[in-house]
């Protein structure tokens, strides 16, 4: 194996004690084929620390009842915990008000809520929605469906060979017909961190609102709604050490007030008669039915956990891992990395010459290495780079340099097998 150059450690943030962090994640002790698991698939779903698991257990053991309903002890306890989680998340993303934080089923559900509520109110025939070429399908398909229904047009900001937005083209595409810009904070397939503040400012200069798909943003870096000034920001709990089935739609109150609810039902109403229904205020207008209460509280616990480590420390740790991993994989002949922007999150998308990504994934699994293989729900990105699929290693706070070494050895094993 070729020597891997030492990587300069960022000193700005306090370093993570990875061994201590790993002790919080019991699942990382898993053995796969007798080998230690190297879980390099956090961009698909991150693992939960014991603190979150314990919080879920405590809720189920001693706090569960339906929220916003009963006057009894447990209902009030559950309601308090649910609303406390909302407040924690509000603070975590520095939104102005709790009512701007809507619990959803996840990022996809959050984006669809906007596509429905904003789209039906503000998008009409001949209008344009602007997305980028690096979007996840969940930030493409809802807009396509809306455009089809409204006779609007979906426009695409191109990306360059490094996997970055072509900002000059973006400026050109913004125009009087543009009703919304919907762009990822961080690309799930390429790892590119977009200059999202600039994207937002340019749109706002023309009075155009912006939705940010933050599924790969919030888990990995400090995000500040007031500083970004975005109109909508969507993310998922399970990519940030929380449970599945819960996510957040942040929206500026001024927009949310004007939007139609996505679903009708219980909890989202003020009053109902057969003649007329008056909707509840935000955020409840967008939280029809009994929400995943436990998952919401679990997400609050995940926020506590991430804050106890420190988002700057997490970013710095991931920066070291991606630098190390990029150097190590680049040093192997026949490995191509997709997404080589200078400003990148901890996502390493690659292919081994002459080997399909699925064969790579199966053999890596034999070596205990878990990566995602496929198109990563970003087929336009795959088309842009002319490949059917890639293997994707993604890193989080609990990953180590040794796990990247394990990945590198496994990649060499694939090359051995395929000669």
């Amino acid at each position, binding site marked *: 194996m070729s020597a891997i150059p030492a990587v300069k450690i960022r000193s700005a943030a306090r370093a993570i004690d990875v061994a201590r962090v790993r002790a919080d994640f019991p699942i990382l002790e898993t053995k796969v084929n007798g080998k230690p698991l190297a879980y390099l698939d956090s961009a698909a779903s991150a693992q939960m620390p014991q603190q979150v698991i314990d919080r879920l257990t405590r809720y189920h053991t001693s706090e569960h009842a339906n929220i916003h309903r009963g006057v009894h002890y447990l209902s009030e306890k559950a309601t308090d915990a649910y609303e406390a989680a909302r407040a924690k998340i509000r603070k975590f993303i520095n939104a102005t008000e709790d009512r701007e934080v809507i619990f959803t089923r996840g990022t996809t559900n959050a984006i669809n809520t906007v596509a429905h509520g904003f789209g039906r109110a503000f998008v009409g025939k001949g209008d344009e929605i602007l997305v980028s070429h690096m979007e996840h399908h969940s930030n493409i398909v809802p807009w396509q469906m809306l455009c089809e229904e409204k006779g609007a047009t979906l426009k695409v900001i191109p990306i360059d060979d490094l996997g970055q937005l072509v900002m000059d083209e973006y400026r050109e595409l913004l125009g009087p017909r543009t009703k919304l810009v919907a762009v990822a904070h961080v690309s799930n397939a390429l790892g590119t961190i977009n200059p999202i503040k600039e994207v937002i400012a340019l749109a706002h200069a023309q009075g155009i609102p912006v939705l940010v798909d933050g599924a790969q943003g919030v888990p990995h870096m400090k995000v500040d709604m007031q500083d970004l000034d975005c109109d909508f920001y969507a993310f998922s709990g399970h990519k940030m050490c929380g449970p599945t089935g819960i996510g957040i739609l942040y929206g500026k109150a001024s927009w949310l007030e004007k939007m139609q609810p996505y679903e009708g039902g219980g909890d989202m109403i003020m009053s109902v008669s057969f003649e007329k229904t008056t909707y509840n205020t935000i955020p409840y207008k967008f939280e029809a039915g009994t929400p995943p209460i436990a998952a919401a509280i679990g997400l609050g616990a995940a926020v506590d956990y991430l804050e106890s480590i420190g988002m700057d420390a997490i970013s710095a740790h991931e920066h070291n891992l991606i630098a190390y991993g990029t150097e190590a994989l680049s040093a192997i002949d026949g490995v191509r990395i997709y997404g080589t922007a200078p400003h990148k999150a901890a996502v390493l998308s690659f292919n081994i010459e002459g080997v399909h990504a699925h*064969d790579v994934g*199966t053999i890596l699994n*034999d070596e205990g290495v878990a990566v995602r*293989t496929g198109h990563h729900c970003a087929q336009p990105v795959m088309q842009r780079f002319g490949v*059917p*699929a890639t293997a994707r290693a993604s890193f989080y706070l609990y990953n180590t340099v040794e796990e990247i070494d394990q990945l590198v050895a496994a990649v060499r094993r694939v090359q051995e097998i*395929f000669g």
Partner: protein
Amino acid sequence: MKSKQLYQEVILDHNKKPRNWGHLDAPSHKAEGLNPLCGDHIWVSLNVADDRVAEIAFEGQSCAICKASASMMTTKVKGKRVDEAEQLVDEFRGMTTGSLDASQQNHLGHLTVFEGVKDLPSRVKCAVLPWHTLHAALHAEASTSTEGEEDPVPGSGIAASGS
């Protein structure tokens, strides 16, 4: 099951040098198989004469498991009667989904190298796709397009047509 056992010499060889690669100019039967989950995408074309598979070819873009399975399938069914080919489809499907024990009487021969795929659920579709595509092609009524009608694998797109 370790995939090392799956990625045996014979599979790696067929992946590297697929047999009957390409397409027939005027096939009596053809079908397209797509696994949208992983992006495997193949075309199988064949000429059936006197109820036998006289010629068969395949091409496409796929992983090693799918390509080797397709390659070995073409060598296996060439010259066979249509009902024999259909029986092989059934047996191959049975072996890779665990309902047929490869040590019992069967006609699969070398194709039993794919037996291990039954322990890799995410890869079963890769191995079976060529066979389902063959099945779809054989089921296409000559001179009738059955596009959209024949989908033996739920969740995968297989379109067949006869000409």
